């Protein structure tokens, strides 16, 4: 049975039915009085709280200020991962001895979940910006390195041979042959990296931060304000989506430029 696509009418009817059932179940549970409205807010309570968080400060700052704080840390960790990961990946792909040295170290550390670095982050950086940046780096670094390595390693041999025949130095080969050839793989890696980095940020901010959306959620949890926690979750989800969309655009643009 290969299912034909649904007619638009049926599709939208079912989609609306799904959304409505979910909203109704939620509203009924919230209004039924099993628990307090603080504990299980109705959907519109969450929206109201979200708007309130934008207008008034909570846990020190307003919502968008928390978000900016989070984004700053994310950007720093992500950029660091890219700045270290891409050159290292290229070096590993080109120089076998670098590969042989780094790979065992990398494989050993890779399986440590980024969040497990939180104790050291707290120990070394306290609640300063270094802590979350370290954890974001640990989350964002592996995909960048792996994808750069893969992209550069599997470059068509004829490009390398042509560049060597023309007397290219190591540096020239890496920057003008390997790097452009590995670009699609690198950009794909950046997308995964951004996603993982953003998730690691959330985890880090739950524990070692004094501002940011994760911190906002923790404070909301301490105040038993589910609406605050849910507002934070929505903000995190939306920003994460926007980052992914932006990178997907960038990926499309780069691939179009290269005529892929």
């Amino acid at each position, binding site marked *: *049975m*290969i*299912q*034909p*696509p*649904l007619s638009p009418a049926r*599709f939208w009817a*079912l*989609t609306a*039915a*799904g*959304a409505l059932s*979910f909203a109704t179940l939620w509203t009924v549970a919230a209004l039924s009085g099993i628990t307090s409205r603080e*504990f299980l807010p109705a959907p519109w309570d969450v929206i109201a709280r979200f708007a309130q968080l934008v207008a008034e400060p909570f846990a020190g700052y307003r919502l968008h200020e928390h978000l900016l704080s989070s984004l700053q840390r994310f950007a720093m960790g992500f950029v660091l991962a890219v700045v270290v990961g891409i050159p290292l990946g290229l070096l590993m792909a080109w120089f076998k001895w670098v590969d*042989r040295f780094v790979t*065992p*170290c*990398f*494989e*050993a*550390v890779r*399986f*440590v*979940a980024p*969040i*497990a*670095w*939180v*104790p*050291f982050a707290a*120990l*070394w950086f306290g609640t300063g910006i270094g802590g979350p940046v370290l954890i974001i780096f640990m989350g964002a670094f592996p995909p960048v390195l*792996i994808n750069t390595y*893969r992209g550069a*390693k599997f470059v068509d041999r004829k490009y390398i041979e042509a560049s060597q025949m023309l007397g290219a130095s190591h540096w020239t080969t890496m920057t003008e042959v390997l790097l452009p050839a590995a670009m699609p793989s690198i950009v794909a*890696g950046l*997308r*995964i990296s951004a*996603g*993982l980095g*953003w*998730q690691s940020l*959330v*985890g880090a901010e*739950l524990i070692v931060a004094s501002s940011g959306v*994760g911190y906002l*959620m*923790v404070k*909301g*949890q301490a105040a*038993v304000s589910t609406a605050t926690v849910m507002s*934070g*979750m*929505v903000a*995190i*989800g939306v920003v*994460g*989506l926007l980052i*992914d969309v932006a990178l*997907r655009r960038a990926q499309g643009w780069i691939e179009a430029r290269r005529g892929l």
Partner: protein
Amino acid sequence: MSAPSASAALPAPMPPRSADSRPLWVRLGVVLGVLAIVIAVWYLLTTVTGFISPARFATPAEVFGALRQIAIEGYSNARLHEHVLRSVLLVTMGFVVASSAGVALGLAMGASRSVEAFANPIFLLLRPIPPLAWIPLAIVWLGLGDAAKIMVIFVSAFVPSVINSYSGVRQIERPIFEASAMLDVKGWRYWREVLIPGALPSIFTGLRLSLQASWTTLVAAELVGAVAGLGQILNQASQDIYPAMILVGMASVALAGWTMTQGLGWIERRVMPWRVQP
């Protein structure tokens, strides 16, 4: 429903070395050699020169001592194997329940466009939220005990299973459907002989992602607050400012996570003997 988002995918493993002609013992020797150099540098920087202060990082000797302590006497209310068992059991329970539900729903969504249209709105709402973001909510609703951990594990494991099972069904090729229609395969046989085997590779990819997500989320949840478990070791060691124990905790987390993934891989190979492993 679109293909798995980047935020749901984890990076692929390092590509296999193409035709590394050196014999196994040489390659093993290189790995051990690198490890030896790293440990030597570590020893030099900490014990011999004191360049890295003991408050910030542990010496190899301290780590060994911490390992002995937790394995034999116990740390943070339990011994190492008790912590490991507790964490692994929690993850396994949550993972099994969540992935069963997730795979079932994913298959249903893949097989029936009506089910897909109905369930989609809820997914679009849940998917962008990272698993770790559920921790505060779980704590508000269920406190700091095991129930909250299971809720978070459930949420992290559920979504990748659904997405991958769905795409697994969707990528089954047309000729297979046509052949099954021609042979009048329907009902339970249709599921057992067409849909599930066809989607199985994707299902296992989803299971692997779910397992890794569950494990990471549990460690994070235990870091925030727990009675026992590997994350709790990290938490306690952090409060006690005991870097050696932090390292022991991190290594245990990595090792346990790796072992579970290998276990899943073993099950995968047994269930899908026809699949050529990349």
